[in-house]
């Protein structure tokens, strides 16, 4: 590790205290979704379509309802009618009708595994037995799995209501091509024509799953008076509440969502699959209902990241200055529109100065599970081809690949992807750090190759609410609505303790339910340490002001004559000058004031900054089998300021590992019926520890002036560069361009044979 060892003026920020939720998690006391049980709870199970595309002519549930132990059966007809409406989902948006239909099909099943009915029974075994008694009359329709199939002339149209958006003229016939998104600056055709060097190539990535270890699960309980509760593992309890309310026509205030611990999300737990289903079952059964997905269901019915096919043309002058780029890509969106086409387009070139560009993204719907967000949604798929082309440009120009990137890297003041001038961004610093790292110049062994790749992610702010209160003994309680995915309890406690001048252990953090704290957006978009952390610091400052005021009253001094330092008030003026009152001494006199000192702060912070990263990868090729192994990996990232370096390093390592899996081994396999053939961890090959080297990390700290401690989001950028870093390294090892992921042994071996 190359973490700075708290080089700043801070007491706690930048140190590595033990996480407060650690003991519960390592001893099994922490309550995840499969652990939670409500009194009187029964068990739900979901019947899923055995066809990739089929019209539902009718569903007969009578036999299932008659099975002893069955308390409720629902189908899509039990869902209220909702209109097709784009609703705000915090930082993004989505069509509530599509979200509802993805929870349960109505007219058509759109992919193998699409929910078509659900049962609640006194045991899970009875619920599953009842599923087998439900008779669904399907009219099987032809299906499309790939982009080529979906766009082929005469292809079956998945949605009669989807017309290609973003075209110059509004189409009059429905299409599987659901949208086009274009970003254009300058005249890239002319720029490329005038370039000294132009690289052009085609690339592809496959849809990949987020592979969180904990499957989706929830318990829902609906009361006769219309009030309801949900206990769920997700990235956002408020998101669960709001989507469930919208889909079922309930009032948000009538649904109380209690967040359970989360065993990974990576973007995939920013929507609902089960909660509305469990709620309808509970309403019908009059009992709390638990539904847990199996791993098989997670793979078949929850959203992967879209796969993408891309063609890139990128040009440079003889000195390496980029002149122009034209990128066209198509994303496989799955059953419903909503793939990450615009962030894909916006991030493709966001880390470089390119004076003339045209990026065109298309989204195509297919008979596969609807896609969902996955860590920097959309960026890895388009940065991968761009970075591979940058490497080829460097080779053609005879330039060092880092020097080429340094020559073209965005800098503070350049126009960012949101058209605003970039603030204190550190891509150049990352490139310099990568260049100086021993890894970059270390000798390579036989059959080894090295790749370097950069990338960025926009990050986000959004709303967060925090309550901070001081107990009578001077200990401090922080309540937030941000689920703790990556160690945010610790980082919130650290920022509060730092601000208040208290020991880290004096601050305890609770993740509250949606009826106990104001709104916080989901823990997504790399926003929580930035936005919720800012609310924590602001609340701590308000509490300090109140404590100073109380101390001044006790001393009969002016508040301006009281200083807060080292967790205590210090009197600077008057008869009591030189005296101090600890936080406990002030808090213990709450009864002599208007009660406990506390503060509730809501923030919506727009001053977040994008993150940038540079990764170095060495791969080793077995030329006899085509098998590739990553033998050394270094992730360099501008992290703003690392509040808890362990957790920041963990984000860098985790994102790298996921990106390596995307590059080397992960992909869905479909049979001719459109059924996923590898819906389990034995066959869906995500990397395990033995597949990976120790991933070295370099945290470059270019603080964000928009945050009290300089925080930038760190969770998503690390998955952006690995696809290209691995592919470039592999291409150098193989001596042939490898542009179609995953780089499985058969594919690499075939490329070696074609080279030979």
């Amino acid at each position, binding site marked *: 590790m190359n973490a700075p060892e708290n080089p700043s003026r801070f007491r706690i920020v930048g140190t590595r205290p033990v996480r407060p939720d650690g003991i519960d998690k390592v001893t099994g006391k922490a309550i995840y979704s499969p652990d939670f049980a409500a009194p009187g709870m029964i068990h739900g199970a979901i019947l899923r379509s055995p066809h990739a595309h089929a019209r539902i002519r009718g569903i007969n549930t009578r036999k299932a309802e008659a099975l002893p132990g069955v308390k409720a059966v629902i189908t899509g007809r039990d869902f209220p009618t909702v209109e097709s409406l784009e609703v705000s989902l915090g*930082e993004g948006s989505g069509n509530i009708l599509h979200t509802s239909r993805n929870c349960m099909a109505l007219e058509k099943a759109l992919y193998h595994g699409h929910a078509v009915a659900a049962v609640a029974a006194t045991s899970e075994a009875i619920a599953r037995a009842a599923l087998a008694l439900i008779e669904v009359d399907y009219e099987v329709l032809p299906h499309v799995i790939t982009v080529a199939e979906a766009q082929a002339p005469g292809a079956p149209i998945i949605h009669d209501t989807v017309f290609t958006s*973003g075209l*110059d003229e509004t189409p009059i016939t429905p299409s599987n091509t659901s949208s086009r998104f*274009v*970003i254009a600056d300058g005249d890239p055709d002319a720029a490329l024509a005038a370039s000294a060097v132009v690289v052009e190539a085609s690339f592809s990535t496959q849809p990949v799953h987020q592979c969180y270890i904990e499957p989706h699960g929830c318990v829902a309980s609906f009361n006769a008076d219309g009030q309801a509760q949900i206990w769920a593992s997700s990235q956002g309890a408020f998101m669960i509440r709001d989507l469930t309310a919208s889909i079922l026509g309930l009032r948000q205030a009538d649904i109380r969502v209690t967040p359970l611990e989360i065993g990974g999300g990576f973007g995939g737990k920013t929507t609902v699959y089960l909660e509305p289903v469990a709620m309808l079952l509970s309403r019908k059964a009059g009992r709390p209902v638990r539904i847990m997905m199996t791993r098989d269901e997670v793979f078949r019915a929850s959203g992967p990241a879209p796969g993408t096919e891309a063609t890139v043309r990128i040009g440079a002058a003889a000195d390496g200055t980029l002149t122009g780029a034209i990128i066209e890509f198509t994303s496989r969106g799955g059953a419903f529109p909503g793939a990450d086409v615009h962030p894909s387009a916006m991030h493709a070139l966001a880390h470089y100065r390119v004076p003339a560009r045209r990026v065109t993204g298309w989204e195509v719907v297919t008979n596969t599970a609807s896609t969902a967000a996955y860590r920097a949604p959309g960026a890895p798929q388009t940065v991968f081809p761009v970075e591979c082309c940058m490497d080829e440009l460097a080779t053609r120009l005879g330039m060092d690949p880092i020097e080429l990137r340094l020559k073209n890297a965005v800098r503070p003041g350049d126009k960012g992807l949101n058209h605003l001038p970039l603030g204190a961004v550190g891509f150049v610093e990352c490139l310099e750090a990568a260049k100086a790292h021993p890894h970059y110049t270390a000798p390579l062994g036989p059959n080894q190759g090295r790749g370097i790749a950069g990338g960025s992610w926009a*990050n986000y702010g959004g709303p967060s609410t925090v309550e901070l209160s001081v107990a009578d003994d001077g200990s401090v309680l922080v309540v937030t609505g941000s689920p703790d995915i990556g160690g945010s309890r610790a980082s919130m406690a650290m920022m509060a303790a730092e601000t208040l001048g208290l020991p880290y252990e004096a601050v305890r953090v609770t993740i509250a339910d949606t009826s106990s704290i104001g709104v916080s957006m989901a823990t997504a978009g790399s926003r929580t340490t930035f936005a919720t952390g800012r609310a924590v610091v602001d609340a701590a400052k308000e509490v300090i002001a109140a404590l100073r005021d109380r101390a001044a009253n006790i001393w009969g001094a002016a508040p301006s004559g009281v200083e807060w330092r080292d967790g205590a008030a210090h009197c600077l003026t008057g008869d009591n000058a030189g005296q101090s009152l600890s936080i406990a001494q002030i808090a213990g006199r709450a009864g002599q004031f208007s009660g406990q000192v506390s503060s509730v702060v809501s923030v919506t912070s727009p001053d977040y900054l994008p993150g940038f990263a540079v990764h170095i990868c060495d791969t080793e090729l077995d030329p006899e089998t085509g098998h590739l192994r990553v033998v050394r990996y270094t992730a360099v990232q501008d992290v703003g300021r690392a509040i808890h370096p362990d957790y920041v390093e963990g984000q860098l390592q985790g994102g790298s590992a996921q990106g390596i899996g995307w590059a080397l081994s992960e992909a869905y396999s479909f049979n001719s019926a459109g059924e996923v053939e590898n819906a389990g961890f034995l066959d869906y090959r995500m990397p395990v520890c033995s597949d990976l080297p120790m991933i070295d990390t370099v945290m470059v700290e270019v603080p964000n002036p928009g945050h009290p401690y300089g925080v930038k989001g760190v969770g998503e950028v690390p998955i952006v560069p690995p696809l290209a870093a691995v592919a470039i390294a592999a291409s150098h090892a193989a001596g042939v361009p490898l542009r179609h992921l995953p780089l499985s042994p058969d594919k690499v071996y075939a490329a070696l044979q074609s080279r030979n």
Partner: protein
Amino acid sequence: MARVVLTPPFGTRFFGGRDHLDIDAGNVFALVRALDGLAPGFADEAGSRAAIAVNGTAITAWDTRLNADSEVLFVLRIAGG
């Protein structure tokens, strides 16, 4: 009149491909109302999908005041994972 800068897809979807408009409005609420009058549905779209900047600074409060030389940028919000 405030200068409205429309990045994709707002210009193409609502304003015939125009990338800017000049609108007289006292704040962002009034501006969005005026734009919705020109292109019904824009207000809903802006509320659910747009990030907004005034004079080069990202804003979240739609009561942000505008004057005659304000530049207001609408850009698609980026979702995260």
